[in-house]
């Protein structure tokens, strides 16, 4: 069992290590970390910080996918969360106070939870297919965000709010700490309780789960709410980092990166067994790729192709069929010898 899990994580980890190594070769100081003004700096820190929103959303996405769902609305929730909090700060009489910042966070999180309840309601109670149910919010959500911002980009200046995406605590960026906290929360929530197993059960065989007395409706609701919660936190992080809410572009296509991170990490889109650690590794691979593009000086017009090639390679390495093919290719010179041996036996 343990070796199986290791196996599942092996290729993503190897791919990540290879990417980091590639960077190190082209830029010998790549892996170096240094202290400056009591803050930790370095490419690794940058990767983690810039990847934080994707990791957060991918964590939520992992559980949704494990329960045979998919959540396309996360990008829209990012926009709504950012719009809600920034609009609140901008409209408040004391736009710079810590209380205002706290209220803004609360509003964003509540909005996220509410949207998660909506997604969960459509999927679990009405029985709409997940891809359609969340497509509703994916498109409508950007509209809601624009309504909140009145079609403008709302800039805010609140240092407390800014700390979420751009601040430092204990030498580390706050966003990394938040992401670590949510990762811990997700792990504890699913593995200390029975939630993880029950999500997998619903994902693997919903009919049998129902007959075993599982209330799959609640389980499905929980995963969509958690996914939206993660998206709201990511929304706060993104808007705080740029101290502005952009209803059109905040979190645009982030659902694709998140789904990709989940898949690269080794969780099947068919649902069932999942790995949160794998998802984090997957998200790191995606973020490191972006960095690698800069390190290698790859021209912008081939950037996407380069990314696609790496992702394709990682996915192929994980597919059992491709692995078997690779193995037989490796053993290709042997069949001749084997045939010869068989001939002898036949004689």
């Amino acid at each position, binding site marked *: 069992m343990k070796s199986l899990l290791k196996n599942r994580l092996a290729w993503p980890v190897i791919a990540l290590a290879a990417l980091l190594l590639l960077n190190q070769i082209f830029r010998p100081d790549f892996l170096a970390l240094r202290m400056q003004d009591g803050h930790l700096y370095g490419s690794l820190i940058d990767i983690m910080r810039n990847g934080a929103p994707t990791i957060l959303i991918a964590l939520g996405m992992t559980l949704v996918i494990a329960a045979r769902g998919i959540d396309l609305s996360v990008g829209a929730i990012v926009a709504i969360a950012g719009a809600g909090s920034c609009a609140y700060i901008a409209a408040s009489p004391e736009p710079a106070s810590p209380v205002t910042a706290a209220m803004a966070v609360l509003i964003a999180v509540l909005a996220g939870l509410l949207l998660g309840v909506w997604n969960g309601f459509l999927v679990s109670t009405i029985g709409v297919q997940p891809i359609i149910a969340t497509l509703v919010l994916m498109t409508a959500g950007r509209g809601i965000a624009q309504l909140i911002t009145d079609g403008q980009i709302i800039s805010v200046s609140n240092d407390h709010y800014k700390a979420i995406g751009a601040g430092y605590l204990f030498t580390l960026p706050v966003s990394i700490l938040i992401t670590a906290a949510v990762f811990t929360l997700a792990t504890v929530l699913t593995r200390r309780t029975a939630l993880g197993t029950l999500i997998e059960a619903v994902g693997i065989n919903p009919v049998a789960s129902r007959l*075993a007395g599982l209330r799959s409706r609640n389980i499905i609701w929980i995963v969509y709410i958690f996914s939206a919660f993660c998206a709201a936190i990511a929304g706060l992080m993104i808007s705080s980092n740029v101290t502005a809410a952009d209803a059109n572009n905040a979190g645009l296509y982030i659902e694709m990166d998140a789904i990709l991170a989940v898949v690269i990490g080794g969780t099947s889109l068919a649902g069932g067994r999942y790995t949160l650690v794998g998802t984090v590794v997957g998200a790191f691979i995606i973020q490191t790729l972006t960095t690698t593009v800069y390190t290698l000086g790859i021209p912008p017009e081939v950037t996407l192709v380069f990314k696609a090639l790496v992702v394709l390679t990682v996915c192929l390495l994980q597919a059992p069929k491709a692995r078997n093919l690779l193995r037989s290719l490796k053993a290709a010179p042997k069949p001749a010898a084997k045939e010869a041996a068989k001939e002898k036996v036949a004689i």
Partner: protein
Amino acid sequence: MNESVPVVEMTDIAIGFPGVKALDGVNFRLFQGEVHALMGENGAGKSTLIKALTGVYTIDSGTMTVLGERKQFPTPAASQAAGISTVYQEVNLCPNLTVEENVLLGREPRRRGSIDWKGVRSRTREVLAELHLDHVDPGSLLSSHSIAVQQLIAIARSVEINAKVLILDEPTSSLDADEVNQLFRVIRDLRERGVAILFVSHFLEQVYEISDRMTVLRNGKLVGEYMTRDLSRMNLISKMIGKELEALAELDHAPARTRARTGSGVTPFLEASGIGRKGSVSDVNLSIYPGEVVGLAGLLGAGRTEIARLIFGADKADEGSIKIKGVGQKVRSPRAAIDKRIGFCSEDRKEEGLIGDLSVRDNLVLAMQASKGWARRVPRRIQDELVAEYIATLDIRPANPDALIRNLSGGNQQKVLLARWLVTSPELLILDEPTRGIDIGAKTQIQKLVNSLATEGMSILFISSELEEVLRLSDRVAVIKDRKMVAEIKNDDVSVEDVMTVIAGGTQ
């Protein structure tokens, strides 16, 4: 029979999985125009051998020849190309396609590049007619037919490709007597035409009726190849389980009914009056007392499973009422039934029972965990105790709690599912075909278990296609016919014939 060149010859076959030798030095020959039964308990290696022959598994060592020619089957397609066709225990067709689409899937006659649907229809009709299935509309959805008919359609598919070898893996496990006869007529036809048929079944009588030769496996090793007419039933069983005949005789008689029937003064645990559901069963009156085994007898498709599902809340009843321990109750969902201490082992293990990719442990505690809710995990220590206890008492193999349940044999999967309900200590346990498709040893174990559970005071609703089994275990037998309950018989010296008479004459 053509003794000269076997159609299929497998020599010294070995296949291993991590930690297990599934097959070790097995020889197997299949001749033209014979029905060859592959016998052995669950886990003996029958499925593995079939999967080697059909290209699902690759063999580690040994040789395979088809019509004298050395072959290797790296994929199922390679095996099919060599003329080997398989009909599995669970029907592997597309339920949402029509009968004709299923029969000719991938081989549709074409005209100018597009599918010739008229040709498809007429070809399907021909094939169905050969199998005496004229009443089946080629344009109807596969899922609109009973499992039995679906199985025959799967055979039609292999007839259509003129397979030289037809493998039937437990084809009769969900057929009633008439359907079995129909199937056997088809098998004999095919044998006449020179098809080599590999037949796997747990029904000994059927094996003796249809097969010419048998190969017996035990624990992945070859026991021997015999002519069916030379091997007595008792000898066969002793070869399959590797025990002496005396030990067997005792095993055979062990699960006889020994309990005294509960007096009628006690309140029944369950009292269903007039329950039914539109398009399903209607007007079912059934009461089950504590410590009583009530059998549901009836032909397949008569409505036995439907009744079980109504009681368990898997389907909602839209008429009638249910009393539990004398108090009127609404059972709207499986969860509600479980809260009322009812358990239900479905007949469809794969679709409605197993969570295939989870471990034996997770599967075993699933119902208990579900009723506690997700927030309160059953502590690991208690899980370990429960799992260890049931692995020991039910003799679940391999005795590894972390093995994925889909890798277990059918009988062991069934035991895990039974254990799933037993850990919830139900007061009423509904067992729908608990012994279908499992070997004789596991079957006896399950029958004994039913007996002892009832002795301890559990109510059991026992559903089985084997009337002998129902009669052996039940205190009362409710006879179901055409989606209605037609009789209730107190089981004192009732014979199979008596029940058959009721089924045959119930509505006349």
